[in-house]
């Protein structure tokens, strides 16, 4: 890769939506004309200054961007290695990075004349963000959520309802994110004329992985500027948690060609990567397959049947991952490593006590990875965690695991 200008990792995907062998458009014919229409609508919007302006204004005045870059002084001291920074996406309106993508897509849905929005959600962060933008733009909204997740994320379910969304519990399978996505796809195939499917992660058929990445890349773009202003250099390492991988690809993407910046993705190691069907680390513990419109690393058995996976975090409990991550794993640009439920719980508590920030359990996986690598780095080195969501929604789950009745 001497000639990085021409071999830029940022050039993917190709015109067929492929990131190397990953990605693609594996959907039923009924949906094919819709995703082709979406692709051209997105291309047109991207090049329309009016669209971009409206999105920028919403990002700043509605979401509160840019999100701060925070030096985590006490955590840095405690770990005794690299200087640790948080990119504070949890301070966004709705409490996570999800709103970045929802605003971009709802403006697109409006341009396309769609009058009904559907979405899937795991932890409920994307559901809340979708319900929020639907309230803001006055569009009816149906959120599909696994029945298990409805139970373990009750506060978010109520938030969505308050915002006017209809929340449909999905009891098929293990009642988690995968099942919610199946049901959302069924809704879309049945209501093609008026419905816009607002996918929350950088996965699904082309152009979703690219579109979601573009909307989330604002995280990495801001970080680059903020970090240069603060430290006069680029960070040595960036860490993010990976479920479908939207917050991770958003913070990684602007740095893909800066080879000196090490990138780490923290997957859901659940009960341990060696426990069969006891984790949701699709890249560490899965193999390439085709599901939900794209080829990517998947948790599956020898017959190609998809496994449910497990994670303490409902937002990471997905047997697949965005196709660009699969690509970045295979080319070796990003290091993906599993973090167990236990490690995430510990990181959750450390962050809360030392920094006064309650992170989402998803983000706590990223933090656990920081806790592993920061002490091995020098004091002159720097590491940035994408603090993708706040943890209010997880307080009950954490209480349960710590044996505390709320």
């Amino acid at each position, binding site marked *: 890769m001497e000639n990085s200008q021409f071999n830029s990792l940022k050039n993917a995907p190709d015109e*067929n939506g492929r990131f190397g062998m990953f990605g*693609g*458009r*594996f*959907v*039923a*014919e*009924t*949906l*094919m*004309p*819709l995703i082709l229409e979406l692709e051209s609508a997105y291309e047109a919007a991207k090049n329309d200054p009016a669209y971009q302006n409206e999105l920028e204004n919403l990002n700043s005045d509605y979401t509160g961007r840019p999100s701060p870059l925070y030096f985590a002084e006490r955590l840095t001291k405690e770990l005794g290695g690299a200087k640790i920074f948080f990119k504070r996406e949890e301070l966004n309106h709705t409490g996570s990075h999800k709103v970045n993508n929802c605003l971009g897509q709802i403006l697109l849905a409006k341009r396309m004349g769609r009058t009904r929005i559907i979405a899937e959600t795991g932890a409920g962060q994307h559901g809340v963000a979708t319900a929020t933008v639907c309230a803001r733009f006055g569009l009816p909204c149906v959120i599909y959520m696994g029945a298990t997740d409805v139970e373990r994320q009750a506060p978010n379910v109520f938030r969505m309802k308050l915002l006017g969304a209809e929340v449909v519990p999905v009891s*098929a*399978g293990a009642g988690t994110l*995968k099942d919610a996505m*199946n049901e959302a*796809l*069924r809704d879309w*195939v*049945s*209501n*093609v*004329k008026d419905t816009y499917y607002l996918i929350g992660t950088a996965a699904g058929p082309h152009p979703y992985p690219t579109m979601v990445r573009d909307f989330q890349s604002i995280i990495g773009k801001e970080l680059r500027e903020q970090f240069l202003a603060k430290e006069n250099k680029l960070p040595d390492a960036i860490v993010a948690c990976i479920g479908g991988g939207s917050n991770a690809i958003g913070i990684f993407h602007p740095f893909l060609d800066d080879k000196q910046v090490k990138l780490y993705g923290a997957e859901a190691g659940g009960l341990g990567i060696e426990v069969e069907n006891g984790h949701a680390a699709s890249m560490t513990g899965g193999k390439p*397959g*085709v*599901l*939900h*419109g794209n080829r990517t690393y*998947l948790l*599956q058995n*020898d*017959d*190609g*049947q*998809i496994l449910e996976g497990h994670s303490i975090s409902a937002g990471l409990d997905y047997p697949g991952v965005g196709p660009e991550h699969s690509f970045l794993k295979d080319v070796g640009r990003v290091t993906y490593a599993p973090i167990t439920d236990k490690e995430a719980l510990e990181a959750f508590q450390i962050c809360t006590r030392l920094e006064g920030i309650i992170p989402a359990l998803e983000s706590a996986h990223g933090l656990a990875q920081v806790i592993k690598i920061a002490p091995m780095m020098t004091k002159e080195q720097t590491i940035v965690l994408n603090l993708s969501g706040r943890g209010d929604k997880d307080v009950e789950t954490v209480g349960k695991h710590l044996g505390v009745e709320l």
Partner: protein
Amino acid sequence: MTKSRIEKSFKKCADNNRAALVTFITAGYPDLKTSQKVLNGLPKVGADIIELGMPFSDPMADGPTIEAAGHKALAAGHNTLKTLEMVANFRKNDQTTPIILMGYYNPIYIFGVEKFLIAAKKAGVDGLIIVDLPSEEDEELCLPALKHDINFIRLTTPTTDEKRLPTVLKNSSGFVYYVSMTGITGSAISSFDSVSDAVKEIKSHTDLPVAVGFGIKSAKDAAQIAAFADGVVVGSALIKALENSLENGKATDSSVIAIHNLVGDLASAIAAVKK
């Protein structure tokens, strides 16, 4: 090139001035033995062409009936290899009825595309309908299947407009499967007239026979479709009949008869509609 079983079957029906009855069953449901019996007896009760569903954990285009049947089959240990064995067993006594495997791409991808196509051809499979492989992904399985002399049957839908139709038909073979609605299997057809218009439209673009599926629940529905289509596909209704015959989730003496009786009724209804 000799005529394929699919071609011969549609020709025979056309010669008899009637539409073909295409029956869908889920392989391995409710159990392997019952499923094989159901399969083996289908031609005798009037099925012209058989679609054998390959169970998948995440059947996004299917409604609750077919999804539950597939999950039950998988829970009982069914897999791709067993589906192929069912076809091979069927072929021991039937060399004329076409069998089309219907399902989703991942189990085939994991089996290995070449290995799967060789095994499928050897078992006696005539065609494939793979829901999540649109023409944009033809290189994955459609083109390799054609090389192995296995038909790749394409789904066209109400969202496939006139501009897109030639793309979809390009590598289609065997017949064209028109999906009667924008929806999942087992839903209801809202307008037979618009289905009829769509079939006419497709026929103006291709010489292949056009079969219609999704939402055909009764002999009456089947007869209505048979009036203008070359084939009538029935799936969820058959699985439902099988499901209703079970006791505590297990097949009974009446299970095979229940589904075969329904197929017989559908066949008579279709035969009564002369073209």
